[in-house]
């Protein structure tokens, strides 16, 4: 980073370099902050006159990618679960397999085995396979646990590095816009260079599909909750209901997005990849893909005898997704968003 601070040619590329310049010496938490501020667009690698083959061998995105993965473990709550970030792909796969198995067995053991092959698209059909209160209680608690774990992790992250005063709404708004547009994935305007020095928008577009697909799915679930509790209408819901429309749109986003990102990842330049092989990126993308695929399959085949087993698999996958959220790649969004807030905050302070 000494080279970067003395060179500064990359100042306009993204938020990382102005943030670096504010710090003459970099301490541990500051490094975690910079690592999470980095969107890994690669521009600073391909623009760098000191990157390999230069003897300085500067590789900012590579270094930050590794530090970023390490930082996830450092702020995990509870701390003893931090090792889940190592060999993350394996853990996520095991947890998912276990979760799906439990749901399938649960359907067989706790209701009658016939529900596994039951069909039904009429109101309340899902809850004959699994009582609503059980479903709500189970998912409500795992969701609540994940939220608590992630809030505590983010709090630890925010408090680790010093900041002058608390973040203003203005900074939060600025960070929200930056995150929503992925402004820092533009390489300052040229585009993301995930593959080579030729910029491409593929990664940004695929991430937008994934992110907004995820939000639509979240919205779909929320409307379902409203339908259930406020209007007393039980799932499954008809095609024209906001739940299904949002879910289908979100599901399509969550299929195209992760497939696109997996493709981009496969072709990405080695300078942008972490050296450690935790597999957390692929694990999270596959989980998202599995969620959307099983969800849409359930929608299309809910009138057939496949409904029962599809429901069990979908619920198993979603349960595992929630459970692994605080211990997988999902947290990148949280730490990055918090870092963007800090960046907006300190840049605003800098100008005063």
């Amino acid at each position, binding site marked *: 980073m000494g*080279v970067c*601070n003395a*060179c*500064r040619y990359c100042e*306009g590329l993204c938020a990382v370099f102005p943030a670096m310049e504010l710090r003459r010496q970099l301490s541990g938490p500051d490094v975690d902050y910079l690592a999470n501020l980095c969107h890994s667009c690669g521009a600073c690698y*391909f623009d760098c*006159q000191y990157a*390999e083959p230069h003897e300085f061998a500067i590789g900012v995105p590579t270094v930050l990618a590794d530090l970023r993965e390490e930082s996830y473990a450092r702020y995990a709550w509870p701390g003893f679960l931090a090792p889940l970030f190592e060999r993350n792909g394996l853990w996520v796969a095991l947890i998912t397999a276990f979760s799906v198995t439990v749901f399938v067995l649960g359907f067989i053991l706790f209701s009658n085995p016939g529900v596994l092959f039951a069909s039904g698209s009429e109101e309340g059909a899902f809850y004959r396979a699994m009582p609503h209160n059980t479903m709500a209680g189970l998912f409500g608690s795992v969701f609540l646990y994940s939220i608590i774990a992630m809030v505590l992790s983010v709090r630890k992250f925010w408090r680790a590095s010093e900041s002058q005063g608390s973040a203003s709404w203005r900074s939060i708004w600025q960070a929200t816009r930056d995150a929503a547009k992925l402004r820092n994935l533009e390489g300052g305007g040229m585009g993301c260079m995930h593959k080579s*020095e030729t910029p491409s928008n593929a990664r940004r577009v695929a991430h937008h599909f994934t992110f907004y697909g995820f939000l639509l799915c979240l919205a779909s679930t929320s409307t379902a909750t409203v339908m259930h509790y406020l209007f007393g209408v039980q799932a499954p819901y008809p095609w024209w209901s906001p739940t299904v429309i949002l879910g289908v749109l979100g599901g399509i986003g969550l299929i195209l997005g992760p497939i696109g990102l997996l493709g981009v990842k496969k072709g990405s330049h080695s300078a942008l990849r972490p050296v450690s092989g935790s597999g957390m990126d692929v694990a999270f993308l596959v989980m998202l893909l599995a969620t959307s695929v099983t969800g849409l399959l359930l929608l299309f085949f809910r009138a057939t005898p496949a409904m029962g087993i599809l429901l069990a698999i979908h619920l198993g996958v979603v349960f595992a997704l929630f459970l692994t959220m605080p211990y997988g790649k999902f947290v990148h969004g949280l730490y990055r968003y918090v870092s963007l807030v800090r960046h907006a905050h300190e840049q605003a302070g800098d100008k005063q």
Partner: protein
Amino acid sequence: MTRFHVVIAGGGNAGLCAAITAASAGATVCVIEAAPKGWRGGNTRHTRNMRVAHDEGNGILTGPYPVEEYMEDLLRVTAGNTNQELATITLERSKELWDYLAEQGVHYQPSLGGTLSLGRTNAFFLGGGRSMLNALYRTAESLGVVIHYDAKVTSLDIQDGVFNSATVTHGWQSDSPEESTIEGRAFIAAAGGFEANIEWLKEAWGTAAENFLIRGTPYNRGEVLRQLLDAGVASVGDSKQCHAVAIDGRAPKFDGGIVTRLDCVPFGVVLNAHGQRFYDEGEDFWPKRYAIWGRLVAAQPDQVGHVIIDSKSIDLFMPSVFPPLKADTLEELAQLTGLPADAMVQTIDAFNHACQGANFDHTEYDDCHTVGIEPAKTHWARPIDKPPFYAYTLRPGITFTYLGVKIDSNARMIMANGRNSGNLYAAGEIMAGNVLGQGYLAGIGMTIGSVFGRIAGESAANAVLN
């Protein structure tokens, strides 16, 4: 044997502007680049901006920079040692460069931290020179320009100022180099100067040149320049001069680039290997003096200088990439630097006693100066007395050489016998001496490269296509 309309030696800013212009006009173009792809682009990879004239600011350029003011600046730094006609063309046509380069995919950014003084006059490339090069290469490739990397022009077939072909050694650094002949109907030399050719530098500087550091590419060895001069092309510029600046002595031999600069001289004293001061460290602001200090250090024993500062000043300049030597006493610091301790302490004592003035301000010509010592320090003179003490090493860093080929307003080379060459054109550092007889103006090297790259490309394409 392959055949092109236009053959270009050198794949930096000038060569690529020429290639893009000629290819856009419909010519078939081949670029011979001596460096492998990872090192492509000569000294352009180390640049970050280009000085361009403009009548109004544009949001990134903070205000107008008319041609007249640009010309005043150029005449000042060169002391009038410029070809007025070519200088006028350079500055006039520099107005077009912002838009021209943007069309080729180059992006800009506001002037970088620590360079506010250039925010009005110089267009900064987003991501620096290498990013700019990447954009130019992308555009050139999309226009069908053929680019040979790791390929060296070993000889030029030039008869009476008319180029026929170039013999090129591909993979010249490998164990199995291969030769080929590339024919062309016009030749554009854009292969830079000879600053990386230590043997050539020694002709002017003697063995002192062995201690010079080369700030840029090791591939600017001046071989194309030498071949052109041997073929009877007229030269321009002082063959013994190079742009030498004082840089951090621990920089790598080649390609250290921008991070090897050291801005601390005005804050302390500079001692030679004998522990003696040798020049006024506070004569002027560092950006106006770093080029003089290159020569000053080159003239000292072992071509080395030692900047000594104390803890009052350590945070007042841009951090250097190499940490300074640090000690609690001057004696210890002398040991670390290898300077004679007695002489060093004596020099600094004398300096400390000579310091006058109380209103230190490094942003203006303040009243802190010395009285009664030789040489005086005329500004920013404060006693060096607050430990810890720090030392940085200075060495001459060579940026570019002035010797080049003589050209006319169409970028066509002129022969030593005064006649025009047939189809030889030049752009960039290899002809910069026509405009820049001496001195330097930040960012003008790139301006000359782009302006004459375009002119050479236009002229060559016009000549071969009509």
